Structure formats: structure tokens, C-alpha cells
């Protein structure tokens, strides 16, 4: 026991002090950061325009919504152009205060909120950005670079051949399904719709801060934004903001000159976002999306994590073998003690890295400071707190760890060099790489037969169970899966202990399979 603890603490301390461990520690937050930044960045850069169709049963909203969305984009472009002109104006159009706004066309000299609807419309009618750029040209320095103007990302169109109003109102999910599901194309409906907005006939403005204004109102009396899956956040915000504007203006106009105008200023649109694939069109939140993706993501992370740790374990063992220190070790303690100690120490390293990653995950969110990211972290934290995911994740991590550790340790014991490490581990690494693909493929039907069968297979079990974590699989299945894995681990470690003893003193090329069987029988 003393020997095991000594070896374990040595393994732990030496690994934690090693360069590869430090590098992984630095890489983990870095990769988390990049992982978060990439979708945001793509979202920002992507110029793909999304089309949203409107069915306006109330009348009078569809055209105004389309115009408002267009104006909104016009303002973004003009505002960007304003900054551009300010930066690159010729010196004779500058004053001590900056741009000489008296001599530059007014439309180029305004921030977004100072641009009137009329100006925005004039800009759109005249031809948009190319026109405005021509207008700006005479005032720019010759060496001004091409401007980066925000692309139009959203377009509002009427829904072609909408189903009859009665059908729509009775079961909007079924009626709109063909336009939004992946099969929309095949059904001959407008392809590529990001969402369909259904405006019921008797929708009215609601007070700011009310339940309905916050997106939790009765869908039948709200503007319904139907999509297949989560709406992109910025699109949802744009639509909500634009609709709020429309409803507030209507209210202001209706109450002009009365005291009610004060309340009218606070009128908002009742908007609910709905998921076409959720039964009954339950309101779709970011939390839903995260909840759906999180277990799969964690399952993939688990594999990735194991791989890092396995690689470290294998390299350490390879080092001990290739520098022959192992012979001194097994003249002091039994090979079994050495192996158990190493497994224990390296599993502690893995747990430490695991803990660090969880901290880094939340650390990054709080440092990031961006409200969307913090909201995301908040939701993740909420989900994690409210469920058994974290303890399960830990359980599956430990199971996964010991499932593979014995194998990698033994392989490491045969390796003389890093090249051996790579060659020997290749089949297992390929297997590990394949695992998340299989698991994710079956995770879409988390309580289906395939997923359940996979849960009971050695090796796949922990990862499959992780991916199923949110579908609350029966406790008996969790226990069964854990039992299968424990038995597998016991068998593997038993075999590993036998082979390990021979492997560390084995000289010459790594053995063939038949030799391994001989080692298992205890021969040398």
C-alpha cells in the first residue's frame, strides 16, 4: 500500500511538473476560447442572407416589417460609412473638430440613430451601398482603402401560397412544418427559410416588462416566430426589436395627443419563438438548445480528454522503460504495485486536469464579459446544477479512464521510443476517434434500441451513457452499464498486470499478438 501511494504521488508530481502537462493546461482554455470564438466569428463574418417569411393574418404588418428590417440594415451601412468617411476624409473636408459636416452630404455625416426613415428609404431607393459609396468618393483621400460595410443578413418576404388561416391557427406547427423542416425542398416549398413569422389576427401591443413582452405570452395572441431549432440570437433580437418598434409606433399614433401616449411609448410586441419540432410548439429557448447539445458535447470532450491523459500515461511509462529505471523499481516493489500506483497517480492527474478545465470553462465565460457568453455560461451552469450531469460526467470519466488506462499503460511498457508509442497506440487511438462519431449518431434517439445496446457494450458504455444523460435513462440501465464497464476494467487490468510484468523487461521488437497471449498465460 505504501508502495502504491509512493508511486502514485511520484507519478502525479512528475507529470504535473512536466512540460506536456503545462502545455495541455494552457491549451485547454485556449481551445475553449477559440471554440467559443469561432461560431461567433463565423456568425459575424458570414454574409449568407437569411430569409424569413411572414404570414400576416392581422394585416398591415408584413410590408412594414420588411421595410423596417431593410431600413435597419440601411442605418447600419450608413453608420459604418459615416465612420469610414470620418476616418478617410480629405484634409480640406476636415476641421479642428474632425469631419467638416457642413460640407459633406448630410446622409454621410450621421450616426445610425440620427438617420431618419426618409433618409434610409432614399438610400435604399437610390441603390444602397454602391450609390452611397459613389456619393462619398469626392470627399475621400485617394489612398482610402475599400470600406468594410455590414452585409445584409436578413430579408423579409411574404410566405408564398400560405395554408388557409383556419388551418394555420388550429395547428401552426403542422401547417408550417413543410416550410421549415429539412424536407421543405422536396415538398416544393420555399427552400432555405430560417423562420416563418405568423402574425395572428387579433394581436395587440403589450406593456414593456409584461410576461408577453418577455416572450412567454400566449402564442395565439402573440407574433409567433417558428423555426426548426434555435433561431440565431442576433436574428431573433433583430426581429424582436423591429416588431417592438412597429407596435410602439402604432400605439403612439393611436394615442397621439392624449395622456395615453406616455403608456404607448412603453408598448412592445408580444413575440414568442417556437420550435417546429417540439410537440405543441413549446417556446424554444437557448437553454433548450444547450440542453440538447451539451451531453453530446461532453461525450466528445470525454474522449478527447481521455486521449490527452492516455498519451501522457503512455509516454511516462515509455520513459521509465527506455531509461531502464523500471528495473530498479521492480527490484523494490512488485510490478503489480508499480502498475496500480501508476494508474492511481495518473488518474489523479486526469482528475486535476478535468477540474482545471471545468474552472477554465467558467473562468473564460466570466472574463469574456460579453453578455451573450455570460448568459450562455449561466444557462450551462443552471443545467449542470439542476441535474446529475456533473456527477455522471465524473463517473463516466473515471470509468472511461480505467477502461483505457490499462491498455495504454501496457502498450507504453512495450515502447522504447515515441515512435513506438505512436505505432503501438494507433489502433486504440483510431478506435477512440471513431467512438464519438458512433455515439453521436445514436444520441439523437437517446432511448432507442441502438443507444441502449451501445450503453451496455464495453468501452462505448460510458460515452453513450454520457450522451444520453439528459434523456434520463432508467437507473437500472445506468447501473447495468456501469457494472459491465467495471467487469471489463477488472478483466483488462488483470490482463494488463500480467503482460506489464513481462513487457517492461522484454527486449527487442514489440511482440505480436500471439506472443501477447503467451504473456497472458504467464510465460515469458
Amino acid at each position, binding site marked *: 500500500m505504501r508502495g502504491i501511494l509512493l*508511486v502514485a504521488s511520484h507519478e502525479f508530481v*512528475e507529470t504535473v511538473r512536466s512540460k506536456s502537462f503545462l502545455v495541455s493546461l494552457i491549451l485547454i482554455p485556449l481551445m475553449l476560447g477559440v471554440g467559443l470564438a469561432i461560431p461567433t466569428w463565423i456568425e459575424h463574418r458570414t454574409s449568407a442572407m437569411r430569409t424569413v417569411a411572414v404570414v400576416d393574418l392581422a394585416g398591415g404588418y408584413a410590408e412594414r416589417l420588411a421595410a423596417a428590417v431593410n431600413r435597419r440594415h440601411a442605418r447600419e451601412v450608413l453608420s459604418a460609412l459615416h465612420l469610414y468617411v470620418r476616418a478617410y476624409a480629405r484634409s480640406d473636408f476636415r476641421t479642428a473638430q474632425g469631419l467638416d459636416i457642413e460640407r459633406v452630404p448630410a446622409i454621410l455625416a450621421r450616426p445610425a440613430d440620427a438617420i431618419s426613415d426618409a433618409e434610409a428609404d432614399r438610400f435604399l431607393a437610390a441603390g444602397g451601398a454602391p450609390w452611397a459609396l459613389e456619393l462619398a468618393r469626392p470627399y475621400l483621400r485617394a489612398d482610402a482603402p475599400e470600406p468594410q460595410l455590414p452585409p445584409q443578413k436578413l430579408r423579409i418576404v411574404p410566405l408564398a401560397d400560405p395554408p388557409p388561416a383556419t388551418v394555420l391557427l388550429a395547428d401552426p406547427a403542422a401547417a408550417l412544418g413543410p416550410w421549415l423542416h429539412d424536407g421543405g425542398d422536396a415538398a416544393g416549398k420555399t427552400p432555405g427559410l430560417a423562420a416563418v413569422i405568423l402574425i395572428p389576427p387579433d394581436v395587440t401591443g403589450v406593456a414593456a416588462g409584461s410576461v408577453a413582452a418577455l416572450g412567454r405570452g400566449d402564442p395565439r395572441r402573440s407574433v409567433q416566430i417558428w423555426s426548426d431549432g434555435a433561431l440565431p440570437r442576433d436574428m431573433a433580437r433583430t426581429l424582436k426589436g423591429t416588431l417592438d418598434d412597429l407596435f410602439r409606433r402604432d400605439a403612439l399614433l393611436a394615442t397621439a395627443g392624449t395622456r395615453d401616449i406616455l403608456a404607448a411609448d412603453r408598448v412592445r410586441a408580444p413575440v414568442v419563438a417556437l420550435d417546429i419540432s417540439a410537440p405543441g410548439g413549446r417556446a424554444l429557448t437557448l437553454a433548450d438548445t444547450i440542453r440538447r447539445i451539451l451531453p453530446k458535447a461532453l461525450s466528445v470532450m470525454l474522449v478527447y480528454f481521455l486521449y490527452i491523459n492516455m498519451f501522457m500515461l503512455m509516454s511516462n511509462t515509455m520513459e521509465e522503460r527506455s531509461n531502464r*529505471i523500471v*528495473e530498479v523499481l521492480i527490484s523494490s516493489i512488485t510490478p503489480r504495485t508499480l502498475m496500480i500506483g501508476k494508474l492511481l497517480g495518473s488518474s489523479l492527474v486526469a482528475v486535476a486536469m478535468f477540474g482545471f478545465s471545468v474552472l477554465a470553462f467558467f473562468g473564460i465565460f466570466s472574463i469574456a464579459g460579453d453578455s451573450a457568453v455570460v448568459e450562455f455560461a449561466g444557462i450551462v451552469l443552471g443545467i449542470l446544477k439542476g441535474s446529475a450531469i456533473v456527477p455522471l460526467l465524473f463517473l463516466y470519466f473515471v470509468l472511461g479512464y480505467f477502461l483505457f488506462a490499462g491498455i495504454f499503460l501496457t502498450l507504453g511498457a512495450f515502447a522504447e521510443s515515441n515512435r513506438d508509442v505512436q505505432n503501438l497506440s494507433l489502433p486504440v487511438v483510431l478506435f477512440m476517434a471513431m467512438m464519438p462519431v458512433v455515439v453521436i449518431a445514436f444520441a439523437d434517439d437517446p432511448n432507442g434500441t441502438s443507444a441502449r445496446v451501445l450503453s451496455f457494450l464495453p468501452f462505448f458504455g460510458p460515452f453513450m451513457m454520457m450522451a444520453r444523460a439528459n434523456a434520463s435513462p432508467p437507473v437500472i440501465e445506468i447501473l447495468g452499464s456501469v457494472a459491465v464497464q467495471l467487469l471489463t476494467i477488472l478483466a483488462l487490468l488483470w490482463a494488463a498486470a500480467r503482460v506489464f510484468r513481462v513487457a517492461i523487461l522484454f527486449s527487442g521488437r514489440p511482440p505480436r499478438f500471439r506472443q501477447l497471449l503467451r504473456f497472458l498465460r504467464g510465460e515469458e
Partner: protein
Amino acid sequence: METVVRIADIHKRFGDQVAVDGLSLAVARGEVFGFLGPNGAGKTTSIRILLDIMSPDRGSVDVLGVRSALSVAHRIGYLPEERGLYRNMTAEGVITYLARLKGLGAREARRRARALLERYGLAAAARRRIRQLSKGMAQKVQVLSTLAHDPDLLILDEPFSGLDPVNQQVLEQVLRDLKAAGKTVIFSTHVMQHAERLCDRILLIARGRNIFEGSVDDAKARLDIRLRLRTEGDVAPLSGLPAIKRVFRRSRDGDICEWEFRAERSLSVERFIAACVEHRIPIRHFTMLEPSLHDVFVRLVRANDAVGGEGS
């Protein structure tokens, strides 16, 4: 004399390669025991079996009164043939860790590590990482790591290889100190000078079998004494002396010839010289060549090879 190590008729083969073939030996407490043999003779394999790092196919081992050296590991220090230490650890750290594996407490292990490094001139290297040390220095550190837990029995597999002459001297002194302290030392080597200077007894093996076990003098007794005499006289009367086995002329320079006499160890040099005087043989130059262990080694191994060659 108490026997510390006893190996009886051990056999070990790797595939169809016979490494040890019926080896037996016994080492008494306080002895310095040399384990000699040509490359591939099975020294390392025997040592590993002795330490229970490997199990023999057949035969028995008794170390410090038990069957498995592992259960008395804290009383044994082992320097393997192929050296190496954790390259990223400090000299002091490695010695401390290995001493702790042998049962020492953390503080005591560190104290002994420091003391040893200081005593053998490595105090400056104590805090340096092994990879920053020269090969010889690292090897010294490894030798020290076998001593830190104050073992009763030391088993060193070719401890002198890789050391410069000065450090070889240092190591010889270490072994003498250990003997003086009553420790038992078993070491393997194929450099006979070390064995000659240090060993109380030696075991010579070849092809996994004992070919000689006994003291260095006994080993030498296996070979003839060689006498060289330079003279212009007639040496024929000398060849009749008892114990003289063979005479031949080595060289000639005018009238003076150099003769070599091969004689049994029982030959008395006094009688030989007296005979020269008696027969009026003038002595220009006279030397007596003691056989070296090296000669014994080469002879016995060659002889064994000839026998083995027939057999296989």
C-alpha cells in the same frame, strides 16, 4: 559462515535461447563476490532471477533467508546493467524517491541522499536535473541511489562500465568500504582487474553454466607458473626438475637465449635458482610470471567453448 545468497540449479530460456543452464552459487555474509563471464553468459539474467525480477524456469533461489528478494527489498541495493534515471528529476530527488521505495521515511531519505552526494563530491549536482549531468556523473548518482537505504546486500551489474579510471578507483573504494562495514557485495564484470583486486571469491560462468567457483588464488592455480630465464648456459638439467612441465626457447641474441619454463604451482623458485647455481648456469635475467585472472578467464572460457562446441 552464514550464507546470504544461495542459488541452486536455476534454468532460464527465452524462446529457444538458453540463457541460464543449471547455475548454482552461494555467497557468504561479508564477502565481495565477483560474477564473471563473457558477453551473453547469462550474468544479467541470473541477477534478475536472484532479485525475483524474473522467475526461473526451474531451480530455487534463497536471498537473505527468503525465497523472493522482493520481500527483503529494503535490505538489498541493486544497480542494473543498463542505467538510467528519471531525466527530469534532480539527483537528490531521484535518490530520495528510490530510497523511499525501499522503505525509508521522506525526511530520512532526503537527509541520506544529501549526505551521500556530499560525501562523494556531488554536492553541487544535488539540485541539478539528471539530464544536465554527464553520463559518468549520472552513473555515480545511480550507484549512490543503491546505497541510500543502507542495504546489507549489494548487487551491482557491471558497475565499472562507463566510469573513467578515477571514478573506477572511487567505486573500488566504495566497495572496500562496504566490505569493511560488513556488507555483502555481488558484482558482475568482464574486466578482471577489478575482480582480482576486490573479490574474496569469484564465479566464472559461460553459456549459463558454472565453470569455476572459488577464490582468485584458486582460479590462478588452474594455470601454470611461467618462468623466464636469459642465459648462455645449457638449460637441459633444469627441465628434469620436479614440477617443470615444459621448456621452450623464446628468443636468441648471439649466445644468449631466453627460455620459458612452464611449471606447476608447487614449483619452488628457490630450488629452481639453486639448481641454476649448481649446474653453473649463469643467470643474465630472471622473471617469474604469475598468471593473471585475465589469463584464467580467457583460458577457461576458451576451454568451455571447445567443450560446448562439441556438444552443440
